[in-house]
């Protein structure tokens, strides 16, 4: 969350950068004081340290156009089978992890709020383990993956509706720094 905020702040500053010509052209009258442009310059330099993170185009995990940015697998009620539609997504992550043997993946299994909290820990674990198994069959090393369960404790959506519950029944794929 904090990193997301930092990222958002950095992006905002970069956006400020792009608009530099405007204050400058305005400030053209009193060019020397340059009060308008100075903060922008400071801002752009402040953005520099976080720039590596902000270079999203270089990070396929964060590129919304890249399938690797898709991280959630959803399930039917009481079920833990991974539907075929998620195979391409998992294949992409398997390829990425094989190409980055130093990278680790955390799989968090989740459930909707119905039923026993402890049974839901076990059900979420079964969901996460199922994803782990598929990735291993696709060639990822066991040591690169940890599968854990959050049960029903961290719902994405908290209303008691089927739409909401469907969002809560999922496994999330998380790379270091994302949890």
């Amino acid at each position, binding site marked *: 969350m904090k990193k997301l905020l930092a990222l958002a702040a950095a992006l905002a500053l970069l956006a400020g950068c792009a608009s530099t010509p405007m204050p400058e052209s305005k400030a053209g009258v009193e060019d020397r004081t340059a009060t308008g442009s100075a903060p922008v310059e400071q801002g752009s330099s402040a953005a520099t340290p976080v720039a590596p993170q902000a270079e999203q185009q270089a990070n396929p995990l964060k590129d919304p156009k890249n399938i690797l940015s898709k991280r959630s697998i959803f399930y039917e009620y009481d079920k833990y089978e991974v539907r075929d539609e998620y195979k391409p997504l998992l294949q992409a992550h398997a390829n990425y992890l094989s190409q980055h043997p130093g990278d680790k993946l955390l799989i*968090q299994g989740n459930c909707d*709020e*119905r*039923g*026993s*909290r*402890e*049974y839901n*820990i*076990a*059900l*979420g*674990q*079964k969901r996460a*383990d199922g994803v782990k198994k598929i990735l291993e069959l696709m060639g990822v090393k066991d040591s690169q993956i*940890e*599968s*854990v*369960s*959050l*049960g029903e*404790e*961290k719902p994405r959506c908290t209303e*008691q509706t089927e739409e909401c519950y469907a969002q809560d029944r999922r496994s999330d794929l998380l790379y270091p720094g994302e*949890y």
Partner: protein
Amino acid sequence: MRFALRAVLLLLALACSSAQAQLSIEITGGGANQIPIGVLRFAGEQALPQNISDIVEADLQRSGRFRMLFAGSVDPLPTEMAQVNFDDWKNRGGDALVIGSVVRLADGRYEARFRLLDIPRQTQIAGVAFTLTAQQVRATAHRIADMVYEKLTGDRGVFSTRIAYVVKQGSRYELQIADADGVGAQTALASREPIISPSWSPDGTRLAYVSFENKKPVVYVHSLVSGRRQVVANFKGSNSAPAWSVDGQQLAVVLSKDGGSQIYLIGADGSNPRRITQSSAINTEPFFAPDGQSIYFTSDRGGSPQIYRMGVTGGDATRITFTGNYNVSPRITPDGKTLIFIARENGRFQLKSLDLASGQAQALTDGQHDESPSIAPNGKMILYATQMSNRGSLAAVSIDGRVKQRLSVQAADVREPAWGPLFNN
């Protein structure tokens, strides 16, 4: 992660600070064959910060096993049997009467005497004197209520026990401990991540629980004496569902370190984990039978979650529940005779009891989201979590399903109740 840990530690430092939110208890159903009893004011009790008789009366009433007779303004208050107008109480249908007195001692403490009288026989059933400080009024009153309850019902009283539960307020979770009447709540642990499955050690000095402060379930044992806690299970994968062995030396826990959710026995200090389930299916929610010889648990090995029993060292399991396709959260009454569990029927999750000898089942509640049952140490009441207008609250029901209570905290979610053990005194 490190930040989360530090936050938890900081909050731990605040542990034992009194919690502001108090559980309030509302009785929503009455029991059968209630014993008519009068509890008179104790002569001189106004010297205490609280009336002993009020607490005794509230305890007895809450149990659902007594019908309170209006004590009115009996004047002068009897303190000895000879001063009681038995005919009057007999005419009012009374079976028993509690009278007492309080005097201040020279050292600043107090002496409280009480007598429990049999009205039809005009005899004394019990009479005890306690020496107490002003801080011990509630504890003394609960002990008196325990004695009255035990003498008249034949069952142990549980008014002196404590309960643990989790309060969620916004994104803050607190593991709290209160007296069985909901008073005197203290926070044992506060965290920004969920806390679930608190479980009392048999001697009542420690709580095992699952905390998510490391972004995954980890089992801790927390000493209520020192306020210190210890990680008991933090293996790769998930660690959850702690249950104490009868002797308090071991815990049954559920670990996924070797693939799937499996039940292990582990020392209460985290030593020597031994796997005792082998099936590739889900195995969770272990609960030791009171004789210490077997473990009840939930498994989906037959295609749907059902309750099974196996020996404490593992081996073959016997299926216990057969009706319905979702039976979970097994607990066994202290006499070993009754299984209490949660069953899903038509999408509703309700508390049920199953007589293990006859196989006869009974629905105890009619809620929508009832879960996490915890049986009182005398086996007569079951505390569980329920929902009221989309908010978590606790409720209690008697073992016969007739007496019902609701325990709620204003503006907060309450869940995960655990009824503490009896202390032998």
